[in-house]
């Protein structure tokens, strides 16, 4: 079984599920978790490629994971401060940048 090819297809599947979640859900935290899922799908593609193309892909995954940690901390802080303003995490009420 070509494990690399199948892992790439699996990465595409997971990325698409993440995109669907971002487009369809209204809860800001679940949308954020779908973004994390998309990052993980990209990581899976990196790892699958690093199986044949050398270890550099794993170094990139290391960086992606640390940037994802920073992004999660800042994004959740933004969600908390908007929750204070709106008493909700519903994305359809996050229209404070509209005129």
């Amino acid at each position, binding site marked *: 079984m070509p494990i690399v090819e199948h892992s790439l297809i699996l990465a595409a599947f997971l990325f698409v599920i993440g995109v669907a979640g971002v487009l*369809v859900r209204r809860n800001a*935290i679940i949308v954020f978790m779908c973004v994390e899922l998309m990052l993980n799908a990209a990581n899976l593609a990196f790892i699958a490629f690093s199986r044949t193309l050398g*270890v550099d892909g794993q170094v990139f995954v290391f960086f992606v994971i640390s940037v994802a940690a920073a992004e999660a901390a*800042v994004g959740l802080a933004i969600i908390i401060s908007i929750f204070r303003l709106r008493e909700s995490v519903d994305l359809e009420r996050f229209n404070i940048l509209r005129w």
Partner: protein
Amino acid sequence: MADLLWWIFAALAVSGAVAMVMARNPVASLLFLVVTLFSLAGIFVLLEAHFIAAIQVIVYAGAIMVLFLFVIMLLNLGEQYRPDLKAGIWLVAGGVASGTLGWLLASALGASGVVGTEPAPVDRDVVGAIADPLFRDYLVPFEVTSILLLAAAVGAVLLAKRRV
């Protein structure tokens, strides 16, 4: 044996991701995401990225998911059972966009041309094989990442504080 394990982990990852998108309770959604992350760590092991698999379990499934759970419980979001999906046209648009993107990604990755080449020979131990390029070729990005993490920590405290 490895093939069977791969299929089990892949099925777990996809069903966890689908359940995460479908679940109404944010806490259940987060636990399904943890299932997906753990099965991805298993697939990383099968792809011989043992160090990244350990990082995945410790940092992602451990630290980042605990942060999400902490915020969900801090904002008291566990008991929202009203429908959370967007209305009508957004569902259709989301389905069409995801389908198109999936077809594009699958065909692009399938045609990437690395499939079938020989696996790169691993001549070092697991951590050493990562540490060598990380601290030689990628030393500057590594240090920039540490500054980024510091800035993110300070920024998160500053954003979430009530009064600066």
